[in-house]
């Protein structure tokens, strides 16, 4: 069985990656293949890694408030490379109205503080249940 492949990415200048690392580990423990980019990644670097690693999902962690710039930029770059099939999801300090606006633009689910890691795992598994996961 092929594993779901996830790129966990820290976008922008924000250095807080406690959440990103916890998510990376939880997804790994749930049987997915996880790559963590490390800090200070530009949208270009993230998309390049996503293409190179041929992931199913890009999970962005962002706490700096730059989400309204970064999510659309990643989406645009993936589109340019004809990889709209890669799901963009993520989490961090993102106000609800911003989450709704991003989701309207086609970004996947975004998770806020206090989310159990199982909610994220279930979401990813259900998004790819037909394709990959038993």
């Amino acid at each position, binding site marked *: 069985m092929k594993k779901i492949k996830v790129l966990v990415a820290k976008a*922008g*200048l*924000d*250095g*807080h*990656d*406690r959440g990103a*690392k*916890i998510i990376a*580990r*939880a997804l790994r423990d749930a049987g997915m293949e996880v*790559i*963590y*980019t*490390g*800090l*200070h990644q*530009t949208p270009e670097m993230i998309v390049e890694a996503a293409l190179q690693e041929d992931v199913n999902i890009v999970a962005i962690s962002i706490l*700096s*408030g*730059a989400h*309204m*710039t*970064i999510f659309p930029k990643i989406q645009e770059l993936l589109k340019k490379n004809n990889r709209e099939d890669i799901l963009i999801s993520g989490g961090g*300090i993102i*106000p*609800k109205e911003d989450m709704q606006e991003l989701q309207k633009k086609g970004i996947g689910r975004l998770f*806020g*503080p*206090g989310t*159990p*890691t*199982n909610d994220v795992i279930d979401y990813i598994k259900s998004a790819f249940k037909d394709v990959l996961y038993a």
Partner: protein
Amino acid sequence: MFYTPDNLKEFDYYKNLGDPGVFPFSRGIHPAMYQGKLWTMRQYAGFGSAKETNTRFKYLLSKGQTGLSIAFDLPTQLGYDSDHPKALGEIGRCGAVVDSLADFEELFQDIPLDKISVSMTINAPALIILAMYIALAEKQNISLNKLQGTIQNDILKEYLARGNYIFPIKVSLKLCIDLIEYASLNLPKWNPISISGYHIREAGANAVQELAFTLANGITYLEEALKRNLKPALFLKGFSFFFASGNNFFEEIAKFRAARFLWANILKEGFKINDPDLIKFKFHAQTSGSALTLQQPLNNIVRVTLQALAAVFGGAQSLHTNSYNEAISLPSEEAVKLALRTQQIIAYESKITETADPLGGSYYLESLTLEMIKKVKAYLKVIQEKGGVISAYEEKYFQTEIQESAYLIQKNIEDKKEIIVGVNEFKEEEEEIFKFQKISSDLEEKQKEKLNLIKSQRDNLKIKEVLKEIKENAKDSLNLMPLILKAVKVYATIGEICGALREVFGEYALREF
């Protein structure tokens, strides 16, 4: 479960505690503690433009805050100007934007620099930011020996936990000591470093790791300063510390008391520094940001109150109380006022300030303090055996410790071994909606215009010369501060100066995969 004198068999009052104000300062660094002087109420603040942050500062001062603490935005913290591609979307989001001295002039408009103490959370470009503050004071004819405040300048914890580094670690450490040296000779009332456990804790460390790693960093800075032949009598008074105050009430109090005991003993035994004034452990505390919940946000007011209380029982010299809506945004004006009022109620109404170290002698607290000291010493020994902080970091010791702890904490919450009210127990369906701070959408454009204006009005020939001088001398200079000061005075920008240094020193890049 309860505690009795049996838990304190090794305990000796004079060895373990001493009176308040007396070595080893476990009970506090002043004999009268808060009866002599209350802690400084210092709310970390900054967002948007320098002007907006100046307005927030004045608001806080008008509500009775007694010191300022500046948050800078991420491009500033990483040495990028507002027109740098990497600054896109980040300007003014996590703090005030600063490109040049012109922004500093607005940031401190109508604030008397000789009367109010100012704390600055800046690390990688700390020399540049302090130079701007000095240049501003000189422009206002304020004598440097009147400037009071703290600059964080704790670069090691950026590598361990916070992630806002620019240069390779050894270069960064050299720049950090440059600042300590310059301040110890020119700014007698300034704390040139605030050695921070806060970010280590927030990254997931437990209280023991927070204290141990912070003390290890403190020892490293002390050793580096001594290698530079700096005089402890001149620089050690400026060593200050910064800790988180989390949910575990008694453990936090024990941590603060243990910190004072350990630092004083390490300096006395390990470094033969005996002057009591030099080995007093001064600290700022901030309530734990990661303990705030998005769910039922008003509950955060109660959490913050308990955490602030622990910091006060622990003998903090200054305190920031978080605002209840910070799990979702920068705090709104009414929320930050309430956080400040929380401190004022503790200070003026609760009467717990009437005696120094009111909990001293408690079987339970003293046992916890002894245990904390023991556990921290064990960590310090491991770090020493690894060859010190930098070599332990290079073998990913701290990162692994912190990650393991963070994951355990998360697991414990998910398994309900730790109860977080409103998150994994006593949950409610309705999500409460509350006001939060917004950043104006035209800020980026306005700031870029301002930057262009500054660049068109200054003497660009001088800028070229001074940047060239920085590049030529960066590697061999004994201390870069005088050159950086020269640059900021002619309105060289933070991006230009850091850019010059990046060319010389290169950047530090950590690859995770």
